[in-house]
């Protein structure tokens, strides 16, 4: 497993040079608190994010909870929620490390084949991940939609930054996209 720093070192070692361009790492350090707030936003809202994503996925495809669907009976629904949480957890690790290697090695490697063997529909899984991606962006920006969240709305109350952590939102989005492309 690598983080942003060891990734730079491994890359430099491949050409036997020093790590000459430290600007990316310096901005990683300068924006460290934003990153930690972002990870905290995901970790603190994880169960809500996962259950909403799975519920949203089922709303759009009711067949999943009919007899024969992949979220029927409860045992399979529970497995689905568990998997959603696992995916989100590895994304939070990747976001903390600033590198996708932990997500790739420990979560995505072989996931598509496993789901194919178990008969888990990729389109539904991808939809749930897409919903989590939107949720993560809302929570990291600390702008969850009041219209949609209703009484479940929860703001983190972290200090507001001018661009609402656009770079971290984009980075988190890239990890969700990585999951989506690994599954489809």
């Amino acid at each position, binding site marked *: 497993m690598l983080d942003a*720093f*060891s990734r730079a070192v491994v890359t*430099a070692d491949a050409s036997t040079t020093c*790590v000459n361009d430290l600007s990316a*790492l310096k901005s990683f350090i300068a924006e460290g608190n934003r990153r*930690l707030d972002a*990870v*905290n936003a995901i970790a603190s809202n994880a169960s809500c994010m996962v259950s909403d994503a799975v519920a949203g996925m089922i709303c759009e495809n009711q067949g999943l909870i009919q007899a024969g669907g992949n979220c029927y009976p409860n045992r399979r629904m529970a497995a689905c929620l568990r998997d959603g949480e696992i995916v989100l957890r590895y994304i939070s690790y990747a976001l903390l*490390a600033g590198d996708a290697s932990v997500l790739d090695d*420990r979560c995505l490697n072989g996931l598509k084949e496993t789901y194919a063997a178990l008969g888990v529909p990729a389109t539904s899984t991808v939809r749930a991940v897409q919903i989590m991606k939107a949720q993560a962006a809302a929570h990291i920006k600390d702008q969850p939609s009041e219209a949609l969240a209703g009484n479940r709305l929860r703001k983190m109350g972290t200090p507001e930054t001018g661009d609402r952590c656009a770079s971290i939102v984009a980075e988190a989005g890239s990890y969700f996209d990585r999951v989506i492309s690994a599954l489809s």
Partner: protein
Amino acid sequence: MKSVITTVVTSADAAGRFPSSSDLESVQGSIQRAAARMEAAEKLGGNIDAVAKEAYDACIKKYPYLNDAGEANSTDTFKAKCHRDIKHYMRLIQYCLVVGGTGPLDEWGIAGSREVYRALNLPTPPYVEALSFARNRGCAPRDLSAQALTEYNALLDYAINSLS
């Protein structure tokens, strides 16, 4: 590669939980100390040729017998290799400064070094002398800030201890 962040992620993953607030705090602590390391890494990376050359010259000066026929520094090829080895250590130290741990030195410098030096019949005291020279050469605030120098020297000490 071991660092504060990967250690935190590994233990969180082993427990199957999201990063906790204490996890985030330890990462924050590491990030707060990182500025000094980056400064040292930047300075060392920019001057690695000069630093390695000085250290190499110092160890040959202390152990002139290495220039004798048949010794480790006798031919131009050997001299280039000796210099390269010192530079190699300095580069690994720069990596350690970037990562914020001794992982690169441990994995790419120290592991197996004893066996290699024994097999090639290389003496370790000159390495120690070269690194010690670098250890005592840095000066704050002339070369870099006091905190950065502390980080740099600590890694040189670590490399010296591994060889002696």
